[in-house]
């Protein structure tokens, strides 16, 4: 039987639970990313990312995270991965490549970890 760990959101290691606090903080970043569902906005972002970020009012930290493709920083500043990944799509990245970069490992290492059964609980 599945046993209940009785965790709270803040006790889960290596995890930034996307709650109201983060959704509020990340609102401009995620709104910008959502726009990338539109082909015209994908072009606009690629041709002038600074202007595009300005249009959505990203915070300085969010802009720097987008500029440097610092995926962990995007998450820490309220980015949601489903939205942030739309930036990765334009870079031609797979989700796995984004996750590797986010955890500071090489794409090859991350792929190997997944093939070996993934990151084990408490591992």
């Amino acid at each position, binding site marked *: *039987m*599945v046993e*209940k*760990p*009785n*965790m*709270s*959101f803040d*006790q*889960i*290691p*290596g*995890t*930034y*639970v*996307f*709650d*109201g606090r983060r*959704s509020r903080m*990340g*609102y401009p970043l*995620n*709104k910008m*990313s*959502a726009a*990338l*569902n*539109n*082909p015209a906005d*994908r072009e606009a972002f690629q041709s002038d990312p600074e202007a595009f970020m300005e249009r959505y009012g990203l915070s300085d930290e969010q802009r720097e995270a987008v500029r440097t493709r610092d995926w*962990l920083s995007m*998450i820490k500043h309220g980015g*949601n*991965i*489903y*939205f942030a*990944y*739309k930036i990765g*799509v*334009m870079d031609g990245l*797979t*989700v*796995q490549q984004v*996750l590797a970069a*986010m*955890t500071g490992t090489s794409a090859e290492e*991350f792929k190997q*970890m*997944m*093939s070996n*059964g*993934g*990151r*084990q*609980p408490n591992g």
Partner: protein
Amino acid sequence: MAEIVAGIGISHVPALGPAVDAAASGQDTNPDMKAFTDVGTWLAQTKPDVVVVIYNDHGASFSFDLVPTFAIGAAESYLPADEGFGRPPLPAYPGDAELSWHIIDSVVPEGFDLTVCQSLDVDHGFSTPMKVLFGTPEAWPVKVIPLAVNVVQQPTPSARRCYELGLAIGRALRSYPKDTRVAVIGTGGMSHQLQGERAGHINPDFDQQFLSEIVNDPENLASLSNPDYIHLAGSEGAELVMWLIMRGALGQNVEAGLSGYVIPVANTAAGVVAMQNAG
């Protein structure tokens, strides 16, 4: 009267499509991967007229401007959404607006505060299971009713609330006066995490227990909290609560059918389980 002919829990990670194709063509000989195709074959044999597909949107049709806890489709048809790659070349999904409204008229008065969508684009959370279970036909052989669940922005509905909504949907379906064969498909999972230092999290012990208890002890799964789901299944694997809506719609006693479990499909543990109401 309508009859619920099948209940299926199934992952919806996009990479599942190619992985299942590889198994079907014999390129991949993993028998657990073959289970996905076998469930599709079995589902076809139950001859469903309509499938209720419980899924979540991944930033395609909903942004954080507006997040419904539960959004049900009541459209005549649904288009596959552009998720950032262009619109996928899939046929539109024909709706069953009449049955959608029957469900809405049944469960809202029971206190489920649905958002009703007469226009809705569906993303890979919906399309991947459709493709895996029905292949890529020129026209879909079933009508669909999408039910989009917020599993992304806390507070997401609890596992208990999902299960209760499923119970209400089951009552609604069984009270539908038309002779309609309905399959209910809960999508998502299994364990995975796509963010933070714990990205790549997989929990096979939990997944295997979940695959068993979704059939035999949904009450226990319904009693787990949101943080427990995230801790056990991962921040994105917590979407498994959607399987409980499917399970609630079925009867109390079900017969387990095929199931399969594979690690990894892309960055996800992938699972499938089929069941039907016990004779």
